[in-house]
C-alpha cells in the first residue's frame, strides 16, 4: 500500500518542484540581475515607473467599475425574466468573450471604433470632427468591459438564481414592486457577490497584456506588463525591466491577498443552471426598461464579435491561408499549444494524484505543507503573470546565449503552468471522487501502477482530462504574452504574426488572422465545454 501511495506522492512533488522552478527561477533571475546592477535597478524607480504603476491601477479600477456596475443591472434584468425567447442564446453569447484571445478582441474593438472602423463615420457626425479612433485609455476600457461585463453578468446571474423560488413567491404575494424586491431580495444577494466578482475583474484587468499592448498608445497609456515588454524588447534595459517586474509582482500579490480575504474565486466559475423554474410578476414599465438594458448589453458584446467576422471575411482569406509564413505560424501555434496543453494536463494530474495520496496517508492528521501547496499553491501561479515569468527567464537566459532560441521551451512551459489552475479544477473533483470510491477496492485486489491507471483512473478521468486539455490548448493558442517577448522571425505563432501584421499596418491581413484564431479557439473551448458537460 505504502508503495503505491508513495509513487503518487513522488509524482506530485516532482510536478510541484517543476512548477516552482519555473516561477521561482524567473523571480531569481530578476533578483540576481537587480543585485548585479543595483544602481541601475534603483535608478529605474523614477517618475516613469510611478506613472506606469498608477495607470495600471487606474485603468483596472475604471474597467472594474464600468464592467461591474452595469453588469449588476443587466443580471438583474435577466433574472427578472427567467424565460423569453433568446435568453439562452444571450447567455451563451455572454460566455464567448472569455474564450476569445485578447489580440482578437483588441482587433474587433479597433474594427468597430477605430479611426477607420465601422462606426468612424457615425462618430465623426456625432462629435462634429474627424473621429480619431479609440486608442489609449478609452480603447483599453472598451475592450476590458467587453471581456468582463458578460463575465460579471453571468456571475451575478448565478448568484441571483440561487435565491430560493419561495422568496420570489413571497415577494409576489406581499405585492413588492421592482424597487422593493430589489431592496429586499436582489440587493442582499448581489451585495455579497460584488467583492468576489469585482476582485476577479480587477485582477484580470490589472494583469491584462495584449489589450494594452495593442490599444494603449505611448507612455500615457502603458501598464506595468507592457512597460516590461518594451523595456526588454525595445530599450534593452534589463534594470528597468527588473524594477517594473518587482513592482508588478508585489502589486498582484497584494491584490491576491486582498481577494483571498474577500473569498473571491480566482478562476471565475460561471456555470449557470439553465431554465430556472419560477415566475416573476412585473409591470410593463419595468419590462420595457429591462428589454432596453439587455439589448444595449447585447449590442455592446455582439458588436466587436460581428466586426471580427465581417473584417475577417473582407480579408483575402484564401491568399492568407496559402502564405508560407501564415502556415508556418499556424503549425507552430498548433504544436506549441498542444505540447503546452499536454504538459499542463500531466503536471495537473500529478499534482491532483499527489495531493490525494498525501491526504490518504495522513488519515486524520492535519495537512502538511506539501499537501497544502498542492492544494492551493497552484492558484499562486496567477500571482505571477506569464509576461513576468517570461521577463525573468529572458533576463536570466541572456547570459546563456541567444535568448530567442529558447522561445519554444518558454512558450510551452509558461503556457502550461498558466493553465494549470483551470486544469486542476477540471480534474480534481473527478479524481478525488474516483479515489474515494475505488481506493480500498484497488488495495484489496492488488490493482496498482499501470494497471490501475489503465483500468481505474483512465475511465473516470478521460472526460475531465479532455476538458482540461482542450481548455489549456485554447488558452495557449490565443496567448500573446511569452511569445511577444521571445518571438522572432524564426519562431512565430499566429497571435505574434497578427501583432506584426498590425504593426506594419497590414490591417486586412490582421483581420483575417484574427478570424482564424477566433474560430480555432472557439472550437477548442466548445469542445472543452461539451466534454465537461457530458460528464456524469
Amino acid at each position: 500500500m505504502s508503495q503505491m501511495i508513495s509513487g503518487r506522492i513522488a509524482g506530485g512533488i516532482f510536478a510541484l518542484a517543476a512548477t516552482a522552478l519555473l516561477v521561482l527561477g524567473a523571480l531569481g533571475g530578476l533578483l540576481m540581475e537587480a543585485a548585479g546592477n543595483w544602481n541601475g535597478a534603483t535608478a529605474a524607480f523614477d517618475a516613469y515607473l510611478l506613472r506606469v504603476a498608477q495607470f495600471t491601477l487606474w485603468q483596472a479600477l475604471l474597467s472594474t467599475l464600468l464592467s461591474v456596475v452595469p453588469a449588476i443591472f443587466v443580471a438583474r434584468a435577466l433574472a427578472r425574466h427567467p424565460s423569453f425567447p433568446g435568453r439562452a442564446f444571450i447567455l451563451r453569447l455572454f460566455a464567448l468573450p472569455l474564450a476569445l484571445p485578447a489580440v482578437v478582441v483588441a482587433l474587433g474593438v479597433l474594427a468597430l471604433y477605430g479611426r477607420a472602423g465601422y462606426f468612424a463615420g457615425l462618430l465623426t457626425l456625432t462629435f462634429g470632427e474627424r473621429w480619431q479612433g479609440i486608442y489609449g485609455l478609452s480603447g483599453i476600457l472598451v475592450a476590458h468591459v467587453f471581456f468582463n461585463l458578460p463575465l460579471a453578468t453571468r456571475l451575478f446571474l448565478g448568484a441571483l438564481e440561487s435565491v430560493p423560488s419561495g422568496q420570489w413567491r413571497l415577494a409576489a404575494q406581499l405585492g413588492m414592486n421592482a424597487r422593493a424586491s430589489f431592496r429586499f431580495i436582489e440587493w442582499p444577494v448581489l451585495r455579497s457577490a460584488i467583492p468576489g466578482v469585482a476582485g476577479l475583474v480587477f485582477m484580470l484587468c490589472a494583469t491584462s497584456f495584449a489589450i494594452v499592448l495593442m490599444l494603449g498608445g505611448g507612455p500615457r497609456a502603458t501598464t506595468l506588463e507592457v512597460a516590461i515588454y518594451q523595456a526588454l524588447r525595445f530599450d534593452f534595459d534589463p534594470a528597468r525591466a527588473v524594477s517594473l517586474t518587482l513592482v508588478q509582482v508585489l502589486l498582484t500579490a497584494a491584490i491576491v491577498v486582498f481577494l483571498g480575504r474577500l473569498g473571491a474565486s480566482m478562476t471565475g466559475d460561471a456555470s449557470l443552471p439553465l431554465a430556472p423554474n419560477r415566475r416573476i410578476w412585473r409591470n410593463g414599465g419595468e419590462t420595457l426598461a429591462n428589454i432596453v438594458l439587455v439589448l444595449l448589453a447585447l449590442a455592446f458584446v455582439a458588436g466587436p464579435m460581428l466586426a471580427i467576422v465581417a473584417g475577417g471575411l473582407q480579408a483575402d482569406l484564401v491568399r492568407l491561408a496559402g502564405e508560407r509564413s501564415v502556415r508556418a505560424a499556424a503549425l507552430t501555434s498548433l504544436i506549441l499549444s498542444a505540447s503546452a496543453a499536454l504538459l499542463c494536463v500531466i503536471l495537473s494530474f500529478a499534482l491532483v494524484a499527489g495531493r490525494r495520496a498525501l491526504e490518504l496517508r495522513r488519515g486524520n492528521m492535519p495537512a502538511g505543507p506539501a499537501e497544502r501547496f498542492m492544494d492551493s499553491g497552484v492558484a499562486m501561479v496567477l500571482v505571477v503573470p506569464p509576461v513576468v515569468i517570461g521577463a525573468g527567464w529572458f533576463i536570466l537566459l541572456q547570459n546563456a546565449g541567444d535568448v530567442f532560441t529558447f522561445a519554444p521551451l518558454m512558450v510551452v512551459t509558461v503556457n502550461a503552468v498558466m493553465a494549470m489552475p483551470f486544469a486542476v479544477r477540471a480534474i480534481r473533483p473527478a479524481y478525488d471522487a474516483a479515489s474515494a470510491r475505488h481506493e480500498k477496492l484497488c488495495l484489496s485486489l492488488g490493482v496498482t501502477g499501470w494497471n490501475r491507471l489503465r483500468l481505474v483512473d483512465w475511465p473516470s478521468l478521460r472526460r475531465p482530462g479532455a476538458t482540461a486539455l482542450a481548455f489549456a490548448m485554447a488558452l495557449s493558442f490565443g496567448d500573446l504574452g511569452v511569445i511577444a517577448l521571445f518571438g522572432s522571425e524564426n519562431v512565430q505563432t499566429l497571435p505574434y504574426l497578427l501583432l506584426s501584421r498590425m504593426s506594419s499596418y497590414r490591417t486586412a491581413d490582421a483581420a483575417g488572422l484574427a478570424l482564424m484564431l477566433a474560430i480555432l479557439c472557439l472550437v477548442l473551448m466548445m469542445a472543452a465545454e461539451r466534454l465537461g458537460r457530458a460528464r456524469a
Partner: protein
Amino acid sequence: MRKDHKGTSGAAIRLDNVRFTYPGGPPMIFDLSVGPGTIVAIMGPSGSGKSTMLNLIAGFEPPSSGRILIADADVTALPPAKRPVSMVFQENNLFAHLTTAANVGLGRSPSLKLSEEDRQDITQAIARTGLAGKEMRLPHELSGGERQRVALARVLVRERPVLLLDEAFASLGPALRDEMLDLLAELHAERGMTVLMATHDPADADRVAEIIAFIDEGRVAAVGLAKDFLSGYGPDAFARYVGERHANRDPALARKRT
C-alpha cells in the same frame, strides 16, 4: 385591498374545473368548495397535486382553464398580491437579512413604509405568536419553530381572509408541531380565517381540521369530515394512503364499511 378585509372572518373558496399541467406532466383538474372559516386538511400522496392546488389558489401558477373564486369574486386573473390570501411555506418564509420585526412588517407594507399604528400592530402580532423580545433577531438567530411563528405573525398583520399552509410545520418535531397547530387553532378562533393546510400527517388533521380533502393523481378525490375519514369512514384510497395504523382505529367499524 387590505382594508377591505380588515377584521373580516374567513371567505369561501371555490375551484371550478381548474385545470393545470406541468410541462411533460399529466393534466390536473381541481374542483373544490370550502365554506368560510373552515379549516381544511389537504392530504394525499407526494406528487398528487397538494402544493399545486395551493399555488393555484395563491396565484403562483396560472390555470389553463377554469375559475378560482374567493368570497364569490373571481380571482383567476389576479396577481398573487391582489388576492385575499396569505401563504406559509415549509421553509424560506423569511428574508435572511431582515429582523423579525421587518419580516413581519413586510406583511403590512412591501416597501416597509410603516405608520405608528402599523408598528403597534406588528409588535402585537409578534407578542401574540410568542416572540415578544425577539423583534430584532435575524432569522438565523431563531429556531425552526420560531421562524414559522414569525411567518404566522406576518399572516396576522396581513389580515387576509384565507390562509394557505404548504406543509408549513412538516420539518418540526412532533411536540413543536403540536404547539404550532394549537397556536394556529387559537389564531383561527380569534380571526376566523379560512385555512387550507397541506399535510402528510393524519395527526395534524386530527388535531385542528374539520374537513379533509383527499387529493389523488391531480384531482380532489374525496372531501369529508375529518373525524369520519380518520375513523375509517373515508374512501378506500384514503384508508390505503394513511395506512392501517391510523385508518382503523375501530377495526369493527372499518370492516363494516367494505
